[in-house]
């Protein structure tokens, strides 16, 4: 049986990688992907806790997190597509001003 700490460590490292991705990249698509990575890390931690606490509520929470994350990605991508009509490339430097 793999101890809980191992799962939490993997989840934490994935969170760190996602955070590094958000800070490092200027392409908004990849920033969105890194956010999804962080949500995935949180999902892993919640499922690990659910397994080790013998409580199903964690898995139900993950179900909701998954659904909300998918909806959030859809809206974020729609925003990127709308932005791409104004600027040729949607990078963080190009959309840094409030003026269009």
């Amino acid at each position, binding site marked *: 049986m793999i101890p809980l*700490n191992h799962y939490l460590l*993997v989840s934490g490292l994935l969170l760190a990688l996602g955070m590094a991705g958000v800070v*490092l990249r200027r392409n908004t698509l990849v920033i969105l992907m890194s956010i999804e990575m962080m949500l995935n890390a949180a999902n892993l931690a919640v499922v690990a806790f659910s397994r080790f606490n013998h409580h199903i509520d964690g898995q*139900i929470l993950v179900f909701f997190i998954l659904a909300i994350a998918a909806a959030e*990605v859809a809206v974020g991508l729609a925003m990127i597509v709308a932005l791409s009509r104004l600027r040729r*490339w949607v990078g963080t430097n190009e959309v840094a001003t409030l003026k269009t």
Partner: protein
Amino acid sequence: MDLQRALFWIFSLVMLASGLLVITRRRAVDSAIFLIQLFLCTAGLFLLLEAFFLAVVQVLVYAGAVVVLFLFVIMLLEPDPTTESRFPRIAVFGSAALAAALGLAFLLLLRKPVILPDAPVEALQGDLQAVLKPLFTHNLLPFELTALIILSAMIGVVLLSKQDLNKP
């Protein structure tokens, strides 16, 4: 090392490696492909944690819908602009330092085993019935609210994609 430990190591290492590749690839398409790999490894870890329903939902929703949506948008935007130029050095150092600090914090925090309360006697089932039964009885309200959120997200997407807001 039995099969469970071997699988855990394989899934975790491949997951972290593909996570690293997601954030470092120049082209957005490459990042999307490695994101699929990451989601599949997470599904594998869910299987090891005996959350069978969630593993399938993870593959279907995340790897099968979210990344496909990403790839559609990458395809819609012109191919050249999704390629980033060289990463600025300050960002590389800053993000590496941030990831190292957070990773180190987790490593230090998780040296001792996490103390859990006493588990109930019956085993936890992770199959379809065990997850969906509370979802439709005890957690029905969040379920319906999530449906509302998805509906509003759909309306938002349709609205955001309109070229001319004056025409219907």
